[in-house]
C-alpha cells in the first residue's frame, strides 16, 4: 500500500496526567486500557471494531469542545485527555439512568444477575433514583433454539449483532431500528446459522441467554474451571461452569460453558457440547489387572487423537517398554504429510496463524469443507472478508452455499485430483523469479492442459485467481483434511511448501482432529494395527473407552488435566471440570513399571526437539491480558533450517472416481462421538446430498439406505439438502462410536448404496 501520509509507528499522549505511548491507529480507549486506565463502557467489545452505541466512554480532550467518544476516536499525538470529572460523571450517570428506564426489575430471576454490566454500572454511577420515564411497551420473549432473547432486557448495545457479522460472518442477527422500539431480530432460521452462541456470550445483560441453562443457576454459584476445548484442533479457551447437581445430589455437574468472549470465540460444539464426561466409572481392581495384561501382550496400541500430550507421551513410553507399535489412525496420514512438509519447507510448522488469516486480503482454501471442519478458521476467514474485503477462493469438490457471503471465487475440482490442483496452484501462485531453477523448470514443465482437464479446474479460473493477487497483499493458503490421506499426500505437501517458500502466501494447515498435531509430534506412528490390539478410545481386542462402552473406562477430556497442541502450534493447558471415579492410563503405566505420580508430571518431558518446553504444568500461564494478549501455555518453538529442500515431483496420473462418491464429514457442531453424546447436541446422522446426487444415485429424500465406507457399515436415512450442489454426498461419522476414531482413509470414496426402505419404516 502506498501510504500517502507517512506516519510514525507510535503516538504519545497524556491520559489523566500520565504520559502514554501507543501504536499509531489505536483508539484513546485502547491506549488507556494498555496503561491500566479505566474508562467505563457498555457496548465496547475488544474483538470487534468500535460499536459506539452506549456513549459511556466519552472523555474530555484539552482544546476540543464537547465530549469525545474514546472507543472510536484515535489517539492523537500530544492530546491531553481527561477520563473523569464532574461533567463526565453526570452524563454517564444520565446514560445509565436512560438504560434503566423500564428495564425490568427482576434481577432475582435473571440469569445475568451478578455478572451483569447494567447492574454493575448502575451501582458504579450511583443511580439510586430514576428521574426519567417513558411509556413501557410489551415485548415478548423470543425462542431462537439454543438461545432465548428477551427484548425487554435488551439494551441495544449491538455487541451480538456485530459479533455475528464481524466474527462469525453469518449475518444471522440484525438491528431492527425503531428508536425506543429498536430490537434485535434474527434474519433467518437460526438452525441455519453457526449456532455458536457467541451472541449470548457477548451479551452484557440478560437479554440473550441459553435456553437450556435459563433459570438453572445464579451466576455466582458456579465455579469456573479454566480449560481448553478438545473437540477439534483449535483448542479454544473455555470455562466449564460447575456446581452441585441438585439439592439432593451433591455430585458436581457442568451447567454451561463460557469463554473470555472479550478476546476469544467459541463455536457451538465447544459451547453447547460439554457433558460428555464418563460418569459411571468405578475402580475395579480386576478390570485394571485385565487392562495391564492386555497392554503387556499387545502388539499394537491403537488410540484416538482425543488425548492429551501427556497421555500420548505416556502411551509412547508404554509402547517403548512393551515393544508394541503405536497406531493413531486419525494422525498417521497427517504425520506423514507434516514430515513431508517439513522436509520440503525447512520449517517444523507452517507460518500463518488465525490473526494472520483475519488480516489477510487474499485467502485460498484447498481440501477442506471449512464451515464444518474448522469453525474458528472459518470465523477468521469471515473476519478477513468483512474487515479486509478479503478475496476468498474456495477450492473444493463440493460447493458450500453457507460461505457465499465470504467466498468470492469457488473453484470446483474433481474428487481425487488434489495433487493436480496443488500443482496448478503452485504454478499460479509461485513467484517464478524467486523460485530455484529446478522448481522453475518443474513448474514450466507441468502439463497444465492435462492437469486442468483431469482436475476440471480451467485455465480461465486460474487466470482469475492470478488476477485476484494483483496489487493485493497478505495472502493465506488454508489446507485441510482431504489432503492428508490422499495417496500422494507427501507430494501435495511438497507443492504447498513450495508455495509457502516461493510466494507471498503463508500456509495454514488444519489438523484433521482434536490433538492430531500433538500426537504427530510426540509419537512415532505405525501405518496400521497388527496382531493383538489394545484400543484406547478405538476398537481393539481390549478396549479402553471414555465413552464408557469398553472393557475399561477412561476419563473423558473434561475430567482430565494435561495439555494439547492447537493448530497455531500453541501448547494449551486444560483442567478437569468433573471428578472421575475410575482408572486412568497413569494407573496402568505404573502397573507396567513406569514411574510417575500424575500424568502432568510428563508435561516438562514433552519432546524438546519438537519445540516443546520444559515447563511444569502448574507453571503454564492461562489468561488474556487487558488488551487481549494471549497468555495460554506457550507456542512451540519455531524451527527453520536453511539447507536444501526437497522439491515436489510432477504429478503422474490423477485419481478419478466414477459412480456414487461420498465425502466423510461431520456437520457443523459435531466432531466425534463425544459431541454426539452431549444432551444439547444430540442429533440423528443423515447422508446428505443434493437433488442432483439423489437423481444420479436414484435416491429419494427419506430413503433408508445401506452402504460401507472406510470399512464401516452404515444404515441411515438419506436427505436431500437443497443448499447443496453437485454429485458428491456428505456422510458423517459422529454416530459411529469408537469406530469413528479408527478411520485412516482418504475422505472421498466411491460406494455402493443399497436401499432398505423408508425413513419411518
Amino acid at each position, binding site marked *: 500500500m502506498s501510504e500517502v501520509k507517512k506516519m510514525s509507528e507510535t503516538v504519545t499522549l497524556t491520559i489523566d496526567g500520565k504520559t502514554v505511548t501507543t501504536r499509531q491507529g489505536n483508539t484513546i480507549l485502547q491506549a488507556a486500557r494498555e496503561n491500566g486506565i479505566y474508562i467505563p463502557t457498555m457496548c465496547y467489545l475488544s474483538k470487534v471494531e468500535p460499536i459506539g452505541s452506549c*456513549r459511556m466512554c466519552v472523555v474530555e480532550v484539552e482544546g476540543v469542545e464537547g465530549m469525545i467518544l474514546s472507543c472510536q476516536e484515535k489517539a492523537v499525538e500530544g492530546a491531553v485527555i481527561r477520563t473523569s470529572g464532574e461533567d463526565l460523571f453526570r452524563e454517564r450517570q444520565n446514560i445509565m439512568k436512560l438504560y434503566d428506564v423500564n428495564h425490568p426489575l427482576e434481577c432475582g430471576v435473571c440469569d445475568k444477575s451478578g455478572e451483569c454490566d447494567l447492574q454493575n454500572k448502575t451501582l458504579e454511577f450511583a443511580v439510586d433514583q430514576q428521574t426519567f420515564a417513558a411509556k413501557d411497551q410489551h415485548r415478548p420473549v423470543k425462542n431462537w433454539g439454543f438461545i432465548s432473547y428477551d427484548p425487554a432486557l435488551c439494551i441495544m448495545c449491538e455487541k451480538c449483532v456485530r459479533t455475528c457479522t464481524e466474527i462469525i460472518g453469518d449475518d444471522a442477527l440484525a438491528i431492527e431500528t425503531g428508536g425506543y422500539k429498536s430490537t434485535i431480530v434474527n434474519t433467518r432460521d437460526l438452525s441455519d446459522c453457526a449456532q455458536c452462541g457467541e451472541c449470548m456470550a457477548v451479551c452484557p445483560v440478560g437479554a440473550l441467554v441459553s435456553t437450556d441453562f435459563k433459570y438453572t443457576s445464579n451466576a455466582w454459584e458456579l465455579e469456573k474451571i479454566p480449560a481448553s476445548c478438545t473437540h477439534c484442533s483449535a483448542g479454544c479457551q473455555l470455562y466449564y461452569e460447575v456446581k452441585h447437581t441438585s439439592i439432593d445430589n451433591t455430585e458436581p455437574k457442568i451447567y454451561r460453558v463460557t469463554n473470555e468472549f472479550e478476546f476469544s470465540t467459541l463455536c457451538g460444539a465447544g459451547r453447547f457440547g460439554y457433558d460428555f464426561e464418563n460418569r459411571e466409572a468405578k475402580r475395579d481392581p480386576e478390570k485394571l489387572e485385565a487392562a495391564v495384561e492386555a497392554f503387556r501382550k499387545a502388539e499394537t496400541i491403537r488410540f484416538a487423537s482425543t488425548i492429551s500430550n501427556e497421555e500420548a507421551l505416556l502411551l509412547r513410553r508404554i509402547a517403548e517398554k512393551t515393544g508394541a507399535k503405536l497406531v493413531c489412525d486419525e494422525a498417521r496420514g497427517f504425520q506423514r504429510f507434516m514430515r513431508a512438509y517439513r522436509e520440503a519447507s525447512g520449517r517444523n510448522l507452517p507460518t500463518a496463524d488465525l490473526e494472520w488469516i483475519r488480516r489477510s486480503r487474499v485467502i485460498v482454501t484447498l481440501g477442506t469443507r471449512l464451515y464444518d471442519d474448522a469453525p474458528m478458521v472459518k470465523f477468521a476467514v469471515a473476519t478477513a472478508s468483512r474487515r479486509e474485503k478479503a478475496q476468498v477462493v474456495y477450492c473444493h469438490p463440493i460447493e458450500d452455499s453457507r460461505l457465499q457471503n465470504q467466498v468470492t471465487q469457488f473453484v470446483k475440482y474433481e474428487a481425487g485430483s488434489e495433487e493436480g490442483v496443488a500443482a496448478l496452484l503452485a504454478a499460479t501462485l509461485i513467484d517464478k523469479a524467486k523460485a530455484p531453477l529446478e522448481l522453475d523448470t518443474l513448474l514450466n514443465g507441468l502439463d497444465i492442459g492435462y492437469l486442468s482437464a483431469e482436475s476440471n479446474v480451467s485455465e480461465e479460473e486460474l487466470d482469475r485467481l492470478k488476477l485476484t493477487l494483483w496489487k493485493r497483499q497478505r495472502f493465506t493458503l488454508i489446507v485441510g483434511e482431504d489432503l492428508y490421506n490422499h495417496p500422494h499426500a507427501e507430494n501435495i505437501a511438497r507443492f504447498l511448501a513450495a508455495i509457502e517458500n516461493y510466494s507471498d502466501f503463508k500456509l495454514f494447515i488444519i489438523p484433521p482432529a482434536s490433538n492430531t498435531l500433538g500426537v504427530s509430534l510426540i509419537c512415532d506412528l505405525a501405518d496400521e494395527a497388527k496382531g493383538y490390539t489394545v484400543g484406547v478410545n478405538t476398537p481393539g481386542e481390549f478396549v479402553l473407552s471414555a465413552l464408557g462402552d469398553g472393557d475399561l473406562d477412561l476419563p473423558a477430556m473434561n475430567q482430565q488435566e494435561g495439555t494439547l497442541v492447537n493448530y497455531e502450534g500453541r501448547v494449551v493447558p486444560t483442567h478437569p471440570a468433573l471428578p472421575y471415579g475410575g482408572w486412568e492410563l497413569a494407573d496402568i503405566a505404573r502397573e507396567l513399571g513406569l514411574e510417575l505420580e500424575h500424568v502432568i508430571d510428563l508435561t516438562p518431558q514433552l519432546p524438546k526437539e519438537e519445540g516443546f518446553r520444559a515447563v511444569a504444568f502448574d507453571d503454564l500461564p492461562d489468561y488474556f491480558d487487558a488488551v487481549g494478549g494471549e497468555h495460554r501455555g506457550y507456542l512451540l518453538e519455531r524451527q527453520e533450517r536453511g539447507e536444501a529442500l526437497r522439491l515436489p515431483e510432477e504429478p503422474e496420473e490423477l485419481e478419478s472416481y466414477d459412480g456414487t462418491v461420498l465425502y466423510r464429514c461431520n456437520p457443523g457442531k459435531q466432531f466425534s462421538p463425544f459431541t454426539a453424546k452431549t444432551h444439547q447436541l444430540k442429533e440423528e446422522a443423515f447422508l446428505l446430498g443434493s437433488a442432483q446426487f439423489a437423481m444420479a444415485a436414484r435416491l429419494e429424500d427419506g430413503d433408508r439406505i445401506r452402504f460401507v465406507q472406510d470399512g464401516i457399515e452404515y444404515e441411515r436415512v438419506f436427505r436431500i439438502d437443497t443448499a447443496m450442489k453437485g454429485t458428491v454426498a456428505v456422510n458423517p461419522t459422529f454416530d459411529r462410536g469408537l469406530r469413528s476414531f479408527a478411520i485412516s482413509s482418504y475422505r472421498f470414496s466411491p460406494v455402493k448404496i443399497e436401499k432398505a426402505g423408508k425413513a419411518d419404516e
Partner: protein
Amino acid sequence: MAKVVFSTWRGERIDNRGKAPEAWEESAFKLPENYDEGTPSKAFIGWDGVAIFREDVDAVRLATEYAATYQEYSEACGRCAPGRWGGRILYDLLDKIARGEGSFEDVEHLREVSQTMMLTSKCEIGRTVPKPILDLMEHYKEQFDACIAEQKPSIHYGREDLNYIAKVTAPCIDMCPSHVDIPAYIEGVRDMVFTESLEATRQTMPLAHTCGRVCPHPCEDACRRANLDEPISIMELKRLGADYETDHHLGFLHPKDPKPLRNDGKKVAIVGAGPAGLTAAYYLGLEGIKVDIFEELPVLGGEVAVGVPEYRMPIERYNKDIELVTSLEAVDVYTNHRVDAERLKELDAEYDAVLLAFGTRLSKKVRAENEREDMEGYWGAIAMLDKVNLWNKYGIGEPASKELKDTTVVCVGGGFTSMDVVRCSVREGAKKVIMLYRRDEKTIIRNTTYEEYHEAVEEGVEFIFHAAIERIVDENNKLKKLICNRYELVPDPDGGRPKLEKIEGADFEIECDWLIPAVSQAADLSILPEEWDLKLTSWNTLLTNGRDYMTSRPGLFAAGDCEYGPMTIVNAVGQAKRAASVISRYIYDGKVSLTDEEIMEDHLNKLKVYDKNEKVTGWMPGIPRQVSEKLTVEERKTNNKEVNLGFTGEQAIAEAERCMRCYYISMVAV
C-alpha cells in the same frame, strides 16, 4: 429574505411579536414561508432553530410534534442510548405538558435529558433535536407555563387542523443531486453490513458502481467533517456495497421488492439508455410500471459506456449497474433504435408518457478560423471516445490506436470529457498529447478533480494554460498546425472577476496530427418535432421548471444532459429519479405533482443545509482522510486497467468511522 414573526434560525434572534408591521425585522434565510403554491406555512422547525410565520402558533404543540417526528424517524437512527431513550422521554414529557398534565419538574427533566442528548448522542439528529425545542421553551415560555400552571391542554392539542410535514436530511444528502442517503450507506460500511450499505444507496441511486467510481462528489463540498479537518471520502465508500454484491455473486439487492408488472395498459417510453434513462426506468420498473427504453447505440449505458474510459469505469462493473435495471420484469430495452422526430411522434401517441434522456452528444466547436468538421485530423471528442470505448469495451469497430499511434494530439477543453480524451490518447499510443485550456490550472482542477488532473500530468499530458486556437491550418484538407493566442488574467480594477485578455505578440504554433475539440457538447435537437414548438433554454436544451421535469408539452418529460446541458452523472440520476416519480403519478391522474418529501427536498435545498462556518464540537479533529491506492504511471499508462484500486477494507472502515452522521430533522407546520 423571509417574513417571520420569530426566528432563531442559524443563531439569528428575531422577535417581531407585538411590533408594528413596519418595524418587522426580516430573516436572513430563505425559510419556507410558503409551503407550496398558495399554501403559506405557519412555522418551520429544524436542527438549527425555529422560525414562526404566524402569531397564533401553538409552540407547545409544535415542540411536541417535532419530538414526535424524531420518534417517527428514529429508523434513521435510534442506535445510541441517549438518542433512543432520550428521544422517547423528550416526546413523552412534552406530550404530558401539552395535554395539560405536566409539572415544572418535567421541564427540568426535559432540560436534563436534552443536555445529555446534545452532548453524547451518536448522530447529529440526537444532538440537534433538543435545540429548537429548548428555543421554544425559552421564548414561548408563557405557553408552556400556562399549560402547566393551569393544567390545561395547549391550544391546538389533539386538533387535526394543522399538517406537520417533516423530512430528514443531512448536508451531504442535500447537496447530492440524487439526494443519496449518504450517512446510511457509510454506516453500512462501518457496520460491515455491505448489503445494507448498497440498499441505502439504491434508494435513490441505482448506479452504485458508477457513482462509487466516477462521481465528482459535490457532496464532499458540503461535508461537515471539513469544518473539523477534511471531508469524508464519500464517493469511494459507495463502491464497497456494490463491489460486495458483485464479488460475492449475490442476486441484485433492491431498496424494496420490485412490484410485479402492473399490466394495466399504462406504459412509459424512455429515449436514451444513459444514466438518466436507466435511472428513470429503474424506479418506474420497481413500481411495476411498464417501461421501454430506446437506445440509438448498439450498447446500453450512454456516455458512461462510450464516453467514460475503461480505466476509470470498468465496463464489467458498469454492466452490473445496467443489469440491475434491465433485470426488472417491467423494463425492456431496444438498442440500435434511433428515435427521430417521426418516431418520437409515434412514441408520444403510443405511450402514456415519454421521457427524453438522450443527453448531449454533439461536440461543440472551438470557434477558430478555418474550423471544418470535414478536415482530416479534426475529430469531435464524442466521436473519438465512441471509437475508443466501443473497441476497448465491446470489441465493436476498430482500435483507435490505428489513428492515434505515434501522432501528436491536441485537445481543447478543460472538463472531464477533455481529460478522457487526452488520457485515452496516451493509452492509444499517441507520441505527444497536449491539452489547450483558456484558463488556469486552478480552474481545471475545480472543473474536474485534483486526481484527474494530476494523473493526466503524470501520464505525460502537456497542459498549456491561458491559450486558445485562433486559426487551424491545413494542407490539402489535412490538419497541419494550429495558430494559438496566449491570454492573461487581468484583474478588474473595480474588484470584479478578472478578465482574460489576449497578450499581443505572444502567439505560437503547434504542429499536430489531431485536433480534438472537447469544449462542450450540445443536445441533438433534430429529434424534436418542429410542430411541437418545445420551449428550450437559452443554451438549447429542453426547458422544464427543474422540479417536475415536464417539458412544455404535456406528457413529455426530459431529464439529464438534454435538459440541463452537459453535467454530471449524479445530476442526471437525480433529475431522472424525480421525473420518474412525477411520471408514476402523471400517467394515472394526468396531473403534475410532487410528494411532500420532494417539496421539502426543494425547500431545504433552497435554504441550504450545509453551513461552512458552523463550529463542530464533540469530535476529535486531525484524523486524516483515507486515500485509496492508485496504479503507478508505469502500471497504468499503456493499458486500460482500473487506475483507482479503491479502499482496502481497513481504510474503508477507518474512513467510515470519521463520518459524523449529520442527520437533521426539519418540519413545516402548514
